[in-house]
């Protein structure tokens, strides 16, 4: 091969790639079936695609294009996508994003266009309903709903002669006993300031104590030194700094790994992680259970993720009718899609009828105490989510993180948090 030729070889190498690479799919079909752009986060896409295929078979006049982004980047990518006005019709939405997206004019209320949706309201768990409602209007139907619960290794705890703790004082005393028995950090805590659920887990624990972080007209009360929020952050700080019973993991998947090494007993996580921890090939699978959130009230945080229609879709009649048909099929109707998620993947649900469905109960019984789950769900409360919640949470979480390790006092952190909240409320509140 003479010298210059390999140069051409490289050029040839990339030309085919350019050929494959080109061409853009999508685009409106010329009359005929309506195309829906459905955007989700990347959880079990094959299942989603299967659900879509079944839907398309039942509704031959609707084509669904699926786009997905990794969960950890979903919110940010959607901000970019919606800001850039890329065609999006139905999307997964979450409780903490709804007010932001609605205020920015990106999502549309289902109730305004399809009053029929109201019939689902009394079949939906209250915390989920609250999460899907903005300005009094319902914006979606639930994809899944879940709780943030207190989970523990029942086998190890019982083997040490103890039962599930009922108050945070008990959590401490049991942890100290386990520590004396050789377990260095009995409480595995998901500690990661860049994750929104770092805050949600804290709120859930505060709810267990019967406290609140904000009062009914959205004024911050978290910095009240006699309030449960303040007391609990202090508890957490002492747990880490004074008693050294907390071990940090930066993501729920790592908490799962840690708990399955048998070195920890307690944790607070999304309830579906209990299913993940109890999954067979792991070393301690089957040993975990949930219990009512420690504290006087025993309440916990409940939340919902849901299917939402965009403002873009709402503006065209064909588009919005198709979107509603889709959303109702996936999030409403006989709840068959939600049931599938529950049975196959242990995802919680907002649909009240499913709590009594025998298949769901049987599937759940393999990894959780179903009665305890039902009881906890009855006590669950939704989080407070005004338009500035996301922004405020971004500000507050690093401060909380500092408090945990003793890098700031609880008073400093809570005061700064309250000040910022009230500042946002003044700027953006009604």
């Amino acid at each position: 091969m003479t010298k210059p030729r390999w140069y051409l070889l490289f050029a040839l190498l990339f030309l085919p790639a350019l050929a494959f690479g080109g061409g853009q799919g999508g685009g409106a079909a010329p009359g005929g079936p309506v195309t829906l752009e459905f955007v989700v986060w990347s959880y079990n896409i094959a299942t989603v695609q299967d659900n879509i295929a079944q839907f398309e078979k039942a509704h031959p006049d609707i084509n669904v294009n699926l786009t997905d982004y990794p969960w950890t980047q979903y919110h940010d990518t959607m901000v970019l996508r919606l800001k850039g006005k890329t065609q999006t019709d139905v999307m997964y939405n979450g409780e903490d994003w709804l007010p932001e997206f609605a205020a920015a004019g990106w999502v549309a209320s289902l109730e305004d266009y399809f009053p029929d949706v109201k019939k689902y309201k009394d079949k939906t768990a209250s915390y989920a309903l609250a999460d899907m409602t903005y300005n009094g209007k319902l914006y979606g139907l639930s994809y899944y709903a879940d709780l943030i619960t207190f989970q523990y290794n029942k086998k190890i705890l019982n083997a040490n002669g103890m039962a599930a703790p009922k108050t945070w004082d008990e959590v401490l005393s049991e942890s100290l006993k386990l520590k004396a028995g050789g377990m260095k950090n009995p409480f595995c805590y998901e500690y990661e300031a860049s994750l929104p659920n770092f805050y949600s887990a804290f709120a859930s624990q505060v709810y267990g104590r019967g406290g609140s972080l904000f009062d009914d007209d959205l004024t911050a009360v978290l910095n009240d030194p006699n309030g449960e929020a303040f007391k609990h952050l202090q508890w957490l700080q002492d747990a880490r700094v004074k008693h050294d019973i907390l071990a940090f993991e930066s993501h729920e998947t790592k908490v799962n790994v840690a708990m399955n090494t048998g070195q920890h007993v307690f944790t607070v996580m999304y309830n579906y992680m209990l299913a993940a921890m109890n999954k067979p090939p792991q070393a301690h699978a089957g040993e975990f259970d949930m219990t009512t959130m420690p504290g006087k009230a025993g309440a916990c945080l409940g939340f919902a993720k849901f299917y939402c229609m965009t403002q873009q879709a709402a503006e065209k009649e064909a588009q919005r009718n198709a979107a509603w048909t889709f959303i109702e099929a996936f999030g409403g109707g006989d709840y068959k899609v939600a049931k599938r998620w529950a049975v196959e993947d242990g995802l919680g649900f907002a649909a009240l009828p499913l709590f009594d469905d025998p298949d769901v109960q049987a599937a759940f019984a393999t990894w959780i105490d179903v009665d305890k789950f039902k009881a906890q769900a009855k006590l669950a409360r939704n989080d407070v989510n005004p338009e500035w919640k996301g922004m405020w949470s971004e500000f507050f979480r690093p401060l909380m993180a500092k408090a945990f390790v003793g890098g700031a006092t609880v008073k400093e952190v809570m005061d700064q948090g309250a000040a910022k909240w009230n500042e946002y409320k003044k700027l953006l509140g009604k």
Partner: protein
Amino acid sequence: MATRDMSRYPIEWLFPVLIMVIVFTVYPFGYALWNSFFQILLILPVKPFVGFQNYVDVVSSIYFREALFNTLVFTIITAPIIVIIALGVARLLLTKFVGRSIVRAVVLLPWAMPGAVSGIIWVWIFHSRWGVLNALLLKLGIISSYIPWLDHPILAKFSVMVAHIWTQIPFASVLLMAALSIINKEIYEAAEVDGAGPARRLFSITLPQIKGMMIIALIYESIMGLTSYDLTYSMTGGGPGGATTLVSYYVWAESFKMLQFGRGAALGVIVALLTLALILLIMRAVPGEITVKE
């Protein structure tokens, strides 16, 4: 220096690169700069002009000082270390020894891993409670109890730097290998005849000959250090209490999480200026052959 005496702009050589750069640099940079002077809060319809207020806000925010400190320390420590180690590796890979081709191929591999993936591997190595390194050290009897690599602020910084260095060595090594291979062997032979030992040869011949490439490597690693994000955050999420937070996280977070696009743009401009300053410093410190003065 073979130069053509044309003052005509050699557009046919530069065209493809230039067109891409202009479209994708001038407009975006202008866009970012422009936005940095407005208060753009996504959920409010108004976008008032606020001059330098965004810059002031960003610099005086509670996270800035620590993140900036962490980022600078991270960059200033890792960049030179990477270049020095890479020099050694490059020299090694040009020496004949049995198994050289295996080492050559293996050295390149960390390069192909995305940051989040390298992060998860290094978490497995450095984890305080179920990490492989701790298990190994314990088994070898070097330590008597596990070291909190990722839980102690300073150790966390160290762990993150080690992982970063691991991902960057391949690139720097390849660069320096190519540079070393161009040096005319006769110069070395002449020096040996004159009695110069290895250290003397290194400092008087090798280093000056590859100075330009070392500077490029140093500049590239500095840019990588200042803009690094994926690896660190997938390992520590910002570290115990903020010990490994980096400015690059906030450039993204201001815009996409706090929804303050004006401030995000301002922070981006600040980082760009910082990078420029660092590069100028490097080029000033070691006057090199890459300044394209004619």
